[in-house]
């Protein structure tokens, strides 16, 4: 399914950081929403700032958001806890269109549904296996998965275990 761009995406001023602060606030809010929706639709878990993706540029109207603009958008996202920088270089960030907590809950509900508590499954089969193909968390990024499982560990619903070089998880 094609991503449906919001109307702002075809509005040239959207790509100029607005000097009027009120206007800018609305503009950045629109950007925030767009980034989340876009990443959600394309299942992007880690966003590379330097990578050129259609998100920050619209070739049809020949506009692109300046690096200063991108920085401001990501700042807003960070304030909303919707991204987290991978490292201090600020080149890549996790995009939380669902928080690790939400992912954890989704996975846990699935496990309960299938009656798989007290069994151990590998991380691979949890996200890439045939059984989970139609689940929302299919294809979940591994580092994101670990973050999700950490939240379950914190509430004593799961435990990540290492065996023979591969990782697995046991749900309670």
């Amino acid at each position, binding site marked *: 399914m094609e991503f449906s761009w919001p*109307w702002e995406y075809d*509005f*040239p*001023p959207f790509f*100029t950081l607005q*000097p009027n602060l*009120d*206007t800018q606030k*609305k*503009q950045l809010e629109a950007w925030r929403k767009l980034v989340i929706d876009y990443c959600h639709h394309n299942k992007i878990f880690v966003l590379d700032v330097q990578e050129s993706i259609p998100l920050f540029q619209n070739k049809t109207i020949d506009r692109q958001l300046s690096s200063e603009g991108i920085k401001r958008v990501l700042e807003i996202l960070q304030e909303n806890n919707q991204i987290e920088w991978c490292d201090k270089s600020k080149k890549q960030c996790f995009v939380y269109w669902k928080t690790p907590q939400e992912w954890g809950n989704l996975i846990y509900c699935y496990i309960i549904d299938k009656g798989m508590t007290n069994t151990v499954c590998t991380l691979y089969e949890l996200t890439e296996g045939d059984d989970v193909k139609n689940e929302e968390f299919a294809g979940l990024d591994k580092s994101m998965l670990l973050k999700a499982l950490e939240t379950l560990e914190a509430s004593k619903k799961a435990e990540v275990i290492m065996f023979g070089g591969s990782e697995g998880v046991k749900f309670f």
Partner: protein
Amino acid sequence: MDRLYFKDKNDCSKEITSYSHTTWKGIRLYDGDSKTEYRSETAYLTPSRLYFSSNDRPAMNMVLDLKCVVLVEEEEGSILRSSKIILHLLPHISEQHSKPYTRSSASFIKLAFSNGGLSHFKICIQKSLLERAWEKHTESSSTSHSAPMAFRSGIVGIERRLQEKVENNSSSIQVAFQDMKNLIDMAKDMVQLASVMSSKIKDRHGDISDDETVKFKSYLLSLGIEDPVTRNACSSSNMFCQHLAKEITTFLLTPISDSGGFMSLSDAYCRVNRARGFELLSPEDFFQACNYMEQLNLPLTCRKFESGVLVLQLQSETNSQLEKDTETLLQARRKLTAFEVSQELGISIILAAECLYTMERKGVLCRDDTVRGLVFYHNEFSSRT
């Protein structure tokens, strides 16, 4: 040696005898470093010349003009050589004289003193060279013939030329300002004439039709402001500014109303000065007068936009009219540049830009800033959500 020349003994006997105390005998002459046939000369030193006479030449003396001498040097002797005086000479000056040498490669001559007196000679000739008696002589004698040295080299020459230049400049500046003064006087007369004519027209209504009177009057008016406020006419600068403010208001009210209620201060300044024609205002005076407008409750005020651009605007008129016009324009076009606004509304680009910025600050517009220029759109961020 080619700087020396022969002169009849009788011509110079008078000059020589009056300087008989500066005489040296037994002198040998050298052309450069080489000996000459003049080996036993008697030298007479006068303030401007050096004469050599010899018994070998009963009728003729040899002469060296001291103005040819650049430098006097003493050459130390040794056991085999006597001490000598070296006279360094200026390049050859061609004068029609018979000479002992018509051509010489050396630029100096040497004098050997076989009878002594070398150091005395040196002192005397150096003194003569310092006094430069020949210059005084030519100056006093050349009052009638007007070819003084037009060109002199050296620092003195440069200074003299600079001095001349300064004098020329100051005289030409004076002439220029005299012209200006004439112009101002003329302009005054012209304006007076114009006002006299206009009053005459007022009196004699019958002769000319009303239509023509109006027409002629408008010509006169376009000549400018009839009786401009000047600093001299006002007692204090405060008064001056207030009067000026009134004058500016009266003059600019119509043009400003015609151009959408705004005029940039620089435009206004030019218009007022053009209307005055003479007694021109300084930008400083103009600006101060404009600042008085609000205080005097005049229909115009001076306003500063946030970018620092100054305008005169109608008191009654806030930006609203201009903004309304711009908004109407925007609805028709979807996007606007300052240039388009200035074209459509007949205002300056600066003012158009200011208007757009103000509207942006109010959140009515938003901008699209690219290399192609700054374009304003309706603020759909606000209107759509």
